[in-house]
């Protein structure tokens, strides 16, 4: 039920595996977490606490970023960051 063009199968059966990826829950967000790269100590706590697995790690640089396609804006990362390197901003669409 993820895409704009919807197919109504009998009983709402989804015929394609992994279709939940297509449902971009990022548009639920009211507040957006923003990682300040110069303050970040790369401790990985935000990555650990994110309930939606929406924190990404760059394997080459080890830096952290937010996947805004799936981040619902719960701000758990903002609350848990030990060096206050993640700030919240109002989502503007």
């Amino acid at each position: 039920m993820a895409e704009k063009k919807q197919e109504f199968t009998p009983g709402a059966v989804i015929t394609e595996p992994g279709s939940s990826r297509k449902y971009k829950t990022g548009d639920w967000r009211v507040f957006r977490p923003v990682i300040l790269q110069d303050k970040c100590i790369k401790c990985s706590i935000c990555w650990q606490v994110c309930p939606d697995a929406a924190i990404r790690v760059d394997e080459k640089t080890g830096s952290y970023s937010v996947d805004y396609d799936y981040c619902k804006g719960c701000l758990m990362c903002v609350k848990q960051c030990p060096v206050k390197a993640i700030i919240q901003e109002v989502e503007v669409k």
Partner: protein
Amino acid sequence: MTKMVVEASHAIALGAKLCRPEVIPMYPITPQTHVVEDLAQMINDGELNAAMIDLESEHSAASAMIGAVAAGSRCFTATSSQGLALMFEMLPIISGMRLPGVMAVANRALSAPINIWNDHSDAVSARDQGWIQLWVESSQEAIDTVIQGFKISEDRNVQMPLMVCFDGFTLSHVFEPVDIPDQKQVDGFLPKFSPVFRLDTENPLTFGPISFPDSFMHFKKQQQEAMLNGLDVIKKANLDFKKAFGRGYGDGLIDLYRMDDAEYAVMGMGTLCGTARVAIDKLRAQGKKVGLVRLRSLRPFPAKEIQEAVKNLNALAVIDRHISLGQEGPLFTDARSAIYCNDISINGYIAGLGGRDITVKLFERVFKDLEEGKQKGAWLF
């Protein structure tokens, strides 16, 4: 074909067996118990190759039905009264997931006060949940309707679960001579279950996902279309059954008795119609033009067929074996809505709650009311 003297419960078990169910999730409850007891015996005796799942509640039995049918197996179960009430959460899930299957409901009053006897409050209360409901009058019709039931329910244009409603005790425990069809005949009538979708590790599918406000109504509309498709499919199943087995029940949706020149008629469901037939014969012998409209399919509701059947009547009485507390008999509500444009007087009567006898005398009283032009129904004690 074998002729046997059996109770309706055993007839239903035999009917289910002939349909070769693969899974029978069940929980026993009076007066349905004999149905599942007989099926357990058949499995034990090696007559039936099915997985019987003896669960801890009806809630679980109905849940197991979801899994069994989603996995692609033909599934049969049975319940009654409080058992159906406990299944209620699953009823719209089974129909919403478009899982076909047959459940026999031995109709019994809902508590309180606790009462194990027949009325229609259990299944009629569940009428809005997307289950086709066929109501039977005899043991013969009970076995035949289980067989027709799978065919209707599994039809690609329907794909909705189906209840075979039969009166507790009044039918479930009453012995009658019944023609038991041969396995070969039933195999010819009822093809193997071939679901549109089924759970399969080789071809993964998601069953029962969330549907957001932008799609939910579309699925409900599909279900409504499927239920209305049921009207023709029920008629066809009845006709095909008649060709194969030599028996049918009206047009499949309604069953008329002495209606050709009738001026007054009663309408009802289940065994009370047998008593109505006796009363009608008695009154006909006195020269009174009376008849019966027996409703077989409560859902989908055959409004057009009812309009046609009653168009020449002066008055119609609807007998409900259930009351929608705070309103009136639900069958009366439906019937009145169906004949809204016909110029016919219609009265609603409440009768037979909690196993109270519905006698020939009561029908004579009802017909007297109609003849005298009384515009109001009553509780028939």
